[in-house]
């Protein structure tokens, strides 16, 4: 965190000054470790075992926050008797189909809820489409579409509040994690038992009524084939300790781009519409009603999804969207499976995708197995790149490494390339959404020079021109384009569209065009229009709430008048849980929102994340809908059952509970189960994407990629700047003195890092910051690889991400870039065709000759808290 979010880290130091214990769990010793009370190095890719060990410690010693757990989580819910755990099936949950490598989640349901769970498995294909379609659909990132609330389950499951029922979630958790003992943690993670127990003591000591612990993480947790389950493990721990929805608690994602949260909320993502409404899937004949029913469930706030969806369709198709035509629901294109970026790149290589827009991103050096990306770029008909600088994605036809090896020739690359210079943040108005869901407006300071334009300008005018060209078309396929609401006021010499007008549309208006105050005002009868329901109210009262800048020194510590947080300007979501079931703060020290009996409403330091006047003792009527079905103690209002889920009865593609699996490429077997890696992980079998076989001595070392303080992602915004290039001038790798001795590496000299994909060269940094770990019966060396470089700019070098395979988490399609295996040898890498020969030789030695299809079946965190321990880890995306 101190490395990649240094200014945010000031608050960790504030907390430490006030007595918090800061623990840093990370394979590497970094600036964060230097300032923490303790640094806990662990093997990259083993965090579920570490966190699972903490969960086991809490459950074994009954240190959970029992009242919170019983009232606010699904610990008491009874699970179907057909459910079988990984403990029963040697690393698989019930419902796994070996042929398709996918799960049928029916048996994971709450008791008596199997039918509903099936219908409620999101907008998946109906049986008529056949098994093949079902398998294809499994890749559609369904696990992510529950972003705004859990997927639907029947209103209230059967419960045993004593937590004694053998099939209640609490008892299932106890059995599931019982083998994650301190000894097992030591053997899997390489963390000595004593050190693990120190962390366990610190975390549990700093949680409860009067204290909270926060966990802070970055892509060191998410970029794994079990990335979602990493976060799930942290969620279970934090819920057991009562650390969610409370000040100083939480699981805090440190995201890596100025508006990466915003581009998830208003998603430039294939499987989502704004506000985490899923993109519809292909069916023979699906109505809006059926789409909503299959997704929304009937209870909890997500039960209002129809209002959110109709308001979005009204924002996009205006008067053309009517009740009679299902509000133009048929205009939305349909998904049939995995349409993520890695799948798309393979389809580019296969010639199925002809056109590609790359906007402010640099996949030619920034994505896993960057060669795949370049092969895709080289096989397009046309490519549009918009960026500040001439990045490698635009120049691949001039300087891709494949030109040197002879795999590509410039004269034979048919891709037509348009490079359009982009405006910078100081040359346009607009909002970024930061990592705490805060929308902050930045004002235009100067006009962009030359052909530089904002992306708002580009897309507005591209759309305008396409509409002009299609204006006389009578093809029904063009109607969604021609009927689109696309009238935005423009200003200035460049006809810049008004970002302010776009934000108003996002925030939403009523039938008379008046700004809406918030999402509870959205209607499903077509009388409201709103481009993103979770952002509804960011333009309340006709005022750009995101541009508010009342100085922090002039307001409360929550700072509610600085910018605007979604939803409804809430700074901590699910903050009902900061009060006890009766609505009183768990302790005075941790008071945040509470029930004011005299006023008959919720009040506090923040906007309460609960219906303002629903009393704590409220009991819903049977059959009630949406939020009306939630009791006064159902703090997790987006969930259909109002409870936070320790156990996930439906919605995930790789199991209802986290389980330790080894990364796709790992030096060791899975100590716990016969099942080595996540059985449902997403593999892309392609000659240019070989996976290394398990074990063996060919690729003996673990490597992990990360960012440096002085550079940014794939380098487009940092490698071209003199200051930053001077501060970090060269690509390097970090190795321990022990590994340096083993491989004869010289500090300051060159090393070549080899995987089955390719080899790259880097300067060697020999440092005790990298520490060999004892894992099972062997010593594991880890190599640190910052990934910022490429051939363009002031500071140049090989791209670390060349080394990685494309293998993904099945729920959200994120790649495993934080734990893989490699070899390291002294000296520079070979040039030209010799490079390919070196890598081919390694493949042969690894037993991969003749086949690249060798997939075997088989992190950490920077952290902080106000009172307690927490971890944190290296950043990437």
């Amino acid at each position, binding site marked *: 965190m101190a490395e990649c*979010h240094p200014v945010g880290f000031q608050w960790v130091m504030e907390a430490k000054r006030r007595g918090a214990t800061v623990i840093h769990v990370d394979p590497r010793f970094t600036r964060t470790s230097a300032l923490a009370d303790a640094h806990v190095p662990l093997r990259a890719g083993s965090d579920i075992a570490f966190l699972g060990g903490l969960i086991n410690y809490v459950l074994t010693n009954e240190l959970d926050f029992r009242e919170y757990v019983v009232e606010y989580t699904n610990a008491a819910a009874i699970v179907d008797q057909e459910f079988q755990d990984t403990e029963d099936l040697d690393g698989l949950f019930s419902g796994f189909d070996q042929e398709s490598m996918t799960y049928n989640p029916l048996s994971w349901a709450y008791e008596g809820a199997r039918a509903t769970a099936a219908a409620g498995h999101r907008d998946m294909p109906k049986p008529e489409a056949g098994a093949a379609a079902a398998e294809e659909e499994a890749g559609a990132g369904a696990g992510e579409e529950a972003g705004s609330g859990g997927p639907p389950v029947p209103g209230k499951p059967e419960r045993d509040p004593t937590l004694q029922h053998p099939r209640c979630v609490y008892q299932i958790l106890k059995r599931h994690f019982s083998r994650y003992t301190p000894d097992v943690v030591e053997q899997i993670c390489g963390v000595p038992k004593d050190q693990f127990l120190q962390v366990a003591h610190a975390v549990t000591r700093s949680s409860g009524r009067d204290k909270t612990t926060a966990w802070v993480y970055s892509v060191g947790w998410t970029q794994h084939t079990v990335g979602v389950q990493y976060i799930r493990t942290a969620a279970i721990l934090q819920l057991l300790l009562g650390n969610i929805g409370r000040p100083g608690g939480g699981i805090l994602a440190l995201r890596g781009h100025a508006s*990466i949260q915003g*581009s998830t909320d208003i998603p430039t993502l294939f499987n989502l519409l704004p506000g985490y409404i899923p993109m519809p899937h292909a069916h023979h004949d699906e109505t809006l009603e059926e789409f909503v029913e299959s997704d929304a469930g009937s209870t909890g706030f997500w039960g209002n999804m129809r209002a959110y969806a109709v308001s979005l369709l009204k924002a996009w198709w205006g008067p053309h969207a009517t009740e009679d035509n299902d509000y133009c629901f048929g205009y939305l294109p349909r998904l049939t499976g995995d349409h993520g970026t890695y799948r798309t790149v393979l389809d580019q290589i296969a010639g199925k995708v002809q056109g590609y827009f790359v906007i402010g991103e640099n996949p030619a050096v920034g994505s896993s197995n960057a060669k795949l990306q370049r092969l895709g770029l080289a096989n397009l008909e*046309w490519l549009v790149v918009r960026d500040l600088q001439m990045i490698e994605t635009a120049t691949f036809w001039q300087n891709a490494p494949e030109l040197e090896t002879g795999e590509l020739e410039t004269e034979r690359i048919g891709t037509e390339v348009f490079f359009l210079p982009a405006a910078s943040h100081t040359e346009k108005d607009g909002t970024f959404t930061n990592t705490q869901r805060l929308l902050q407006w930045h004002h235009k300071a100067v006009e962009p020079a030359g052909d530089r334009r904002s992306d708002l300008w580009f897309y507005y005018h591209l759309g305008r021109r396409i509409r002009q060209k299609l204006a006389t078309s009578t093809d029904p396929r063009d109607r969604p384009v021609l009927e689109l609401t696309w009238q935005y006021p423009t200003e200035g010499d460049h006809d810049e569209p008004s970002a302010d007008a*776009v934000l108003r549309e996002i925030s939403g208006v009523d039938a008379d065009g008046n700004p809406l105050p918030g999402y509870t005002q959205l209607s499903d009868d077509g009388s409201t229009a709103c481009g993103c329901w979770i952002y509804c109210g960011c333009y309340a009262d006709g005022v750009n709430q995101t541009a508010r800048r009342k100085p922090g020194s002039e307001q409360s510590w929550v700072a509610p008048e600085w910018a605007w947080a979604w939803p409804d300007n809430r700074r901590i979501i699910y903050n009902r849980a900061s009060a006890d079931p009766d609505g009183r703060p768990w302790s005075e020290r941790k008071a945040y929102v509470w029930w004011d009996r005299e006023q008959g409403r919720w009040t506090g330091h923040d906007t309460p994340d609960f219906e303002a006047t629903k009393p704590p003792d409220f009991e819903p009527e049977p059959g009630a809908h949406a939020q009306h079905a939630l009791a006064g103690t159902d703090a997790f209002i987006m969930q259909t059952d109002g409870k936070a889920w320790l156990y996930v009865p439906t919605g995930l593609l790789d199991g209802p509970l986290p389980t330790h699996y080894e990364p796709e490429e790992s030096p060791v077997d899975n100590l716990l189960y016969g099942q080595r890696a996540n059985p449902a992980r997403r593999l892309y079998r392609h000659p240019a994407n070989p996976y290394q076989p398990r074990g063996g001595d060919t690729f003996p070392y673990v490597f992990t990629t990360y960012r440096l303080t002085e550079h940014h992602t794939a380098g487009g*915004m940092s490698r071209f700047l003199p200051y930053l290039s001077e501060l970090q001038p060269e690509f390097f790798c970090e190795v321990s003195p022990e590994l340096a001795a083993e491989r004869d590496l010289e500090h300051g000299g060159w090393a070549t890092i080899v995987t089955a994909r390719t080899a790259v060269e880097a300067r060697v940094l020999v440092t005790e910051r990298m520490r060999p770990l004892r894992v099972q019966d062997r010593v594991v060396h880890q190599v640190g690889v910052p990934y910022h470089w490429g051939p363009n700019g002031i500071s140049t070098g090989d791209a670390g991400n060349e080394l990685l395979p494309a293998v993904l988490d099945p729920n959200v399609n994120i790649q495993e870039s934080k734990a893989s295996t490699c070899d390291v040898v002294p000296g520079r890498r070979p040039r030209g065709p010799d490079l390919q020969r070196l890598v081919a030789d390694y493949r042969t030695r690894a037993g991969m000759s003749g086949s690249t299809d060798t997939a075997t079946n088989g992190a950490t965190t920077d952290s902080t808290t106000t009172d307690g321990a927490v971890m944190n880890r290296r950043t990437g995306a």
Partner: protein
Amino acid sequence: MGLKTWLDHWPVYRQLTGTDPLGRGAASKSRRRAELTPRTATAERVVKSVCPYCAVGCGQNVYVDDGTVTQIEGDPDSPISRGRLCPKGAASEQLVNSPTRETKVRYRRPYGTEWEDLDLDTALDMIADRVIQTRRRTWQDTDEHGRYLNRTMGISHLGGATLDNEENYLIKKLYTALGAIQIENQARI
């Protein structure tokens, strides 16, 4: 020039006789330095902004003179950053004023070996044509099971996490209306 004035030019003299015996403050300041004014103090305008790098969202004050950004500093008002910037944020004046930033559209024709010039308006027109043609050619009304698709699989997109919300909104809106679904960004990369 009197002796006193002459001696006053000598930092060691000032250090020995003044209030700064360690020579780390007033004693080390030359007259030239005393006469300088930081460009932030005389800027025509100060524009409120947000750092474009990571997602912490630090406040920035953008100093503008004569239509040019002259400096970017941390905004002390921000309750997030309290005026601080990291090395990247502090270098963002170089980001926006970089001499290697492109100002002109560049075009590489199929099988070409060099960049060519292209008018922005022509480029936009050509791209609009490419989109329309590719969309027509790759359109899918239904799949082999007869299910409704209403889409093109010929057009793909990557990028968004460095853009504004308003930009992402128009991007998603336009592509969805065009039936393009292979839209992705850094959020899962």
